[in-house]
């Protein structure tokens, strides 16, 4: 575990989380959440949890993003906050 890489990945994750919450366009927020999941996957590989990492990459970032995009396309894309 390299602490510099760990710190940089943690900062990217926090930036992605804040951006996903504050963006008004819901489709953009969902895509940023997918980027957040991929950064999480990198962090887990760096921590040595390879099985969790590929589960997150396939299930969390893949299926989760597809589900969210389907929901946004079925409903409204704009949000007020």
């Amino acid at each position, binding site marked *: *575990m390299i602490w510099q890489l*760990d*710190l940089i990945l*943690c900062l990217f*994750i*926090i930036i992605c*989380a*804040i951006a*996903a*919450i504050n963006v008004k366009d*819901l489709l953009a*927020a*969902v895509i940023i*959440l997918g980027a*957040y*999941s991929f950064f*999480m996957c990198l*962090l*887990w590989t760096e*921590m*040595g*949890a*390879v*099985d*969790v990492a590929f*589960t*997150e990459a396939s*299930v*969390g970032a893949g*299926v*989760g993003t597809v*589900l*969210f995009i*389907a*929901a*946004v396309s*079925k*409903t*409204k894309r704009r*949000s*007020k*906050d």
Partner: protein
Amino acid sequence: MLDYVISKYNFWIYIILMMIGLYAMIGKKNLVKKLIGMNIFQSAIILFYVSTGVKAGATVPILSGHGHGHGHEVIEVAKYINPLPHVLMLTAIVVSIATTGVAIATLILIYRKYNTLEEDEILMIRKETGV
């Protein structure tokens, strides 16, 4: 004291992430934003659990060079990262995706009934119609 805080920096980052998710669940009005906040909250807790298994100077928990006939060497536990939190959190990731799926199905039903996803507008419609 300051050294102690800095040496456990990853725990503070996980707490910040958890609070971002909690704020999105409580403070945001849009239901999709609330769901995104729930995802962030869950992944912060999973991060905390996985980070408890990390050891300094250890490698991934995959045995190499053991078994296949010459399985009498002693396995040094300190050389491998603890895989128990990984296995538990693998289940938690799958459960969180299932929860998200059910929540999205409910969200689409709410949109079909009220034609909006903002919490305050839904509450106003419910008050006007008296249900």
